[in-house]
């Protein structure tokens, strides 16, 4: 039965949230303007209105989750994003797989942030909340789902399946409810995808806070006071956004099979750019607090951060990227709305800034080369140029769309080799940044002139050169570009470590944020240099096949074909593919798939054999996501099994085929990263022609290249799955088949009942053979076997060694820790000043 209540509730709450957002904005404007007598009333009303908005926003989320959680497949959202087989934590991922869910997440975070601001910061409440409420109105409009004539405002997640599709079934039976949904994209079935989107959206949402304070500052003409409350939030935002980016990179590394953690895909670039600008903004804001310069730059950068977040949303969700991205984004027809959203805030910000530009205080003093302002400014400029270099080519599809909307033709495409294109710039910018952080930190903490600088830098310089020399020699870094990178990285690490030690000795850990973050940057650089620059594909095909064309022989084939059980040499390892596995609930290792037979019920299988102490033959076992196959690949060195890896692949009909995920062996100094690129399809085998063999017990013969021993036959008293009657004769042949080091026993059976012959063939999918006992010739003491075969099981695999990738991960953690320390310091500062009443 169709449940329309919950969808109507969700839709109604969306409308309430939209209206209350507008009311809140209006009310806060009135509160802002009201005289002292009316102020209290307007404030109460505004807060009530915002509370209504907050509750309805939460209710939207609850309604949508209820639909997914209770498998209400009559709703389009549940049907297309989830399925019965999903565990609860992946239902959470289903929630934000669709764009509507992502917008709800964003709305939710804004409500949380708005509430915190109301409680912590009474003075700025009115102006800040006007901006918040307007943003909320725009965001809620994205999921409004209202159609007025040809105009469609928003795409509602609460529409029924029958409204979303024109499937003929609904004409026959409007109340039809599908049995199951099409499932969650298997790539998103990963624990990082449960936590990555909320983190990223919290990052997105929090860029609004400094922007809102700035708008408040411009309106109230408190051109510099906004910085103190905005700064801890800006650092918070950079920390969370950075964490979101890293989680996304890590998710890509462990789930996607493009062979790395960063691909310079437009979607990745779209978050990277606002983050760079935000970091530049933070540096300028800190400089302003110290020395009253860089105020205007801070303002421009804060505005740019927020607008770039909106621009990123526009690029990613409007469908304008189209062919340019490997990420598939569906166009929900929101591009116009997204564009208006972005242009509205851009216009408001520019108008306010231009209007107040003349009144904003500036420092007339020219910054000296030996001043920290100068170096921070250079750093911020470098960050901005980095961002500019990335956003420009990323916007090519948007540029094409713009030219075409004016009737022109533009056939510009993004650079063909994106990784090479972006790296050649970003690498050198990053080197410059590393040097700047090292030098800049010294300027920051003490007054510098030429001599003092020399003295201060000498020790870290010597240490870092020695350290680099050791790294270069030990890790064999012989490329001149990488040598410079190592130098820059170690220099920033040592210089900032020296500063860090000084700070810790003299004062409190609270001041250590900057140097920690910079040490992290140095480690990230070195980690990227090793893991990407020296990543080594070891799965080079050495099958020795020659091709019909000479040019093809010159190409490196970067995958190996592994036949089951056949040892294959791969650089230092001998690898053997051992067959498919499944994950069974309650068992930590993977279980061979061949001993599990699907029962037809979702995620349930019948055990065909005993498995250790975990289950017995005939037991029903629970499979974790039955579509997942794990391919067991053993790695040998000197004939000794070192370890085995099980890269995963999932066949998902609803999602359009196969998706595979890597498996990595993590060593302390490197990762061995492997994934399956192609595999045998045993669902619908093409059997080759019949082959017939006659053999006597004890004979040895070849079946499809396998050495086979016929060890004789037994007369059976009982037979699994068959009731033997009086007078029945059942004979089972024992065939031993050898495949490399594996010996298999195949037992085709032959039954005679009332002069009728029944044959029970055996199929071995791994070897790709089917054998039946066709006849028994007692006179000659011979048995007749019929054999069909198709493809032996195989996988095509890629394996890459990524050296020192752990330095990268540790570096990111240190950098995030640095940000966290800085947040506490700045918030503490703000709180002390606020409580003293010195500053509002």
């Amino acid at each position, binding site marked *: 039965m169709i449940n329309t209540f919950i969808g109507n509730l969700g839709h109604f709450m969306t409308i309430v949230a939209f209206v209350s957002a507008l009311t809140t904005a209006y009310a806060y404007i009135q509160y802002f303007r009201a005289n002292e007598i009316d102020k209290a009333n307007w404030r109460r009303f505004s807060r009530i209105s915002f509370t209504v908005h907050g509750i309805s926003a939460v209710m939207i989320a609850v309604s949508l989750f209820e639909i997914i959680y209770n498998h209400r497949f009559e709703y389009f959202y549940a049907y297309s994003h989830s399925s019965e087989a999903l565990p609860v934590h992946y239902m959470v991922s289903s929630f934000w797989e669709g764009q509507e869910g992502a917008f709800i997440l964003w709305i939710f975070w804004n409500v949380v942030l708005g509430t915190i601001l109301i409680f912590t910061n009474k003075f700025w409440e009115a102006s800040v909340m006007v901006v918040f409420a307007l943003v909320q109105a725009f965001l809620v409009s994205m999921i409004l789902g209202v159609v007025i004539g040809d105009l469609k405002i928003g795409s509602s997640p609460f529409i029924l399946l029958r409204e979303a599709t024109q499937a003929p*079934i609904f004409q026959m039976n409007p109340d039809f409810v599908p049995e199951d949904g099409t499932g969650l994209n298997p790539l998103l079935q990963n624990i990082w995808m449960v936590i990555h989107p909320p983190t990223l959206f919290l990052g997105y949402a929090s860029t609004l806070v400094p922007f809102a304070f700035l708008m408040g500052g411009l309106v109230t003409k408190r051109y510099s006071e906004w910085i103190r409350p905005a700064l801890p939030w800006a650092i918070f935002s950079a920390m969370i956004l950075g964490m979101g980016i890293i989680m996304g990179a890590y998710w890509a590394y462990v789930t996607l099979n493009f062979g790395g953690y960063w691909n310079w895909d437009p979607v990745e670039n779209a978050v990277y750019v606002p983050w760079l600008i935000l970091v530049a903004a933070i540096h300028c804001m800190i400089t302003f607090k110290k020395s009253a310069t860089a105020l205007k730059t801070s303002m421009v950068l804060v505005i740019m951060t927020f607008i770039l977040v909106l621009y990123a949303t526009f690029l990613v969700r409007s469908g304008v990227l189209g062919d340019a991205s490997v990420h*598939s984004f569906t166009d929900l027809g929101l591009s116009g709305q997204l564009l208006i959203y972005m242009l509205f805030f851009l216009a408001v910000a520019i108008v306010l800034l231009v209007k107040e530009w003349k009144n904003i205080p500036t420092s007339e003093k020219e910054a000296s080369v030996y001043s920290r302002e100068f170096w921070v400014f*250079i750093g911020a400029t470098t960050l901005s140029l980095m961002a500019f270099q990335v956003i420009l080519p990323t916007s090519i599809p948007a540029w094409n769309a713009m030219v075409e909307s004016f009737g022109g033709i533009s*056939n510009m495409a993004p650079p063909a080799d994106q990784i090479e294109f972006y790296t050649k710039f970003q690498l050198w910018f990053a080197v410059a940044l590393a040097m700047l952080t090292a030098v800049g930190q010294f300027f920051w903490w003490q007054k510098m002139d030429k001599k003092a600088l020399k003295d201060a830098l000498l020790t870290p310089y010597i240490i870092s050169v020695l350290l680099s020399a050791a790294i270069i020699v030990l890790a064999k870094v012989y490329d001149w570009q990488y040598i410079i990178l190592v130098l820059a990285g170690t220099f920033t690490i040592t210089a900032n470590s020296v500063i860090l030690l000084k700070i810790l000795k003299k004062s409190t850990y609270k001041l250590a944020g900057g140097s920690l973050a910079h040490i992290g940057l140095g480690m990230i650089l070195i980690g990227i240099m090793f893991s990407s620059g020296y990543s080594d594909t070891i799965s080079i095909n050495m099958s020795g096949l020659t091709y019909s064309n000479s040019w093809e022989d010159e190409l490196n084939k970067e995958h190996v074909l592994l036949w089951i059980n056949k040892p294959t040499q791969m650089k230092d390892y001998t690898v053997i593919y051992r067959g498919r596995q499944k994950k069974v609930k309650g068992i930590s290792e993977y279980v061979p798939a061949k001993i599990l037979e699907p029962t037809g019920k979702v995620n349930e299988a019948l055990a065909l054999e005993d498995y250790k102490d975990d289950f017995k033959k005939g037991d029903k076992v629970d499979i974790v996501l039955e579509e997942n196959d794990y391919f067991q690949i053993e790695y040998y060195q000197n004939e000794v099994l070192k370890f085995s890896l099980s890269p995963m*692949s999932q066949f998902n009909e609803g999602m359009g*085929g196969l998706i595979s995920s890597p498996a990595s062996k993590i060593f302390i100094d490197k990762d061995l990263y492997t994934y399956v690129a192609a595999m045998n399809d045993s669902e619908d085998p093409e059997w080759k022609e019949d082959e017939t063999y006659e053999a006597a017990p004890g004979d040895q013969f070849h079946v499809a290249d396998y050495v086979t021993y016929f060890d004789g036959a037994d007369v059976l008293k009982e037979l699994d799955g068959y009731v033997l009657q009086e007078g029945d004769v059942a004979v089972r042949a024992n065939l031993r088949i050898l495949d490399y080091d594996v010996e298999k026993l195949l037992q085709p059976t032959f039954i005679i009942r009332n002069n009728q012959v029944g044959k029970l063939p055996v199929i071995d999918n791994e070897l790709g053979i089917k054998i039946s006992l066709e006849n028994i010739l007692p006179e000659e003491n011979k048995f007749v076997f019929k054999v069909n075969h198709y493809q032996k099981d195989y996988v095509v695999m890629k394996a890459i060694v990524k050296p020192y990738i752990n330095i990268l991960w540790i570096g990111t953690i240190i950098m995030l820790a640095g940000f966290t320390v800085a947040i506490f310091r700045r918030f503490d500062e703000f709180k002390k000043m606020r409580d003293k009443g010195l500053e509002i």
Partner: protein
Amino acid sequence: MKKGHLLGLGIIAIAIVIIMTSIGDASSYESFTTAKEMKQNGEDNAIHVVGQLKKDSTGEVTGLNVREDKVSFTFMLVDNEGVEQEVFYNEPVPADFSRSESVVVIGSYKNDDIFIADKILMKCPSKYQETEVQVAGM
């Protein structure tokens, strides 16, 4: 003010370099005909061609030829002008390849007969345009 000006000029110079290289390194969307002309004119840089897989009268993909070691393959792509071209890709066949609605190949001609794709982007039938609903279990 002198230093400020120098700095400003430096920034502008770098920005111009960035813009020029972005335009210079930008690839372009071409058809097989124009791509071949480019090759004959000695331009070797990788370009984008958008097309569809060749299908026979029953709608099955034809011309897919997987190499014996299964680590590379060739296929027939029909570009938007209807020109057919054999394309080589030095990777195993992507999983949902034959289901894709349109295929973007990024690469260049090796010789007059074969186009080598360095990268393939596939556009798969969007779930949102789905008009069929699985009615199993009715």
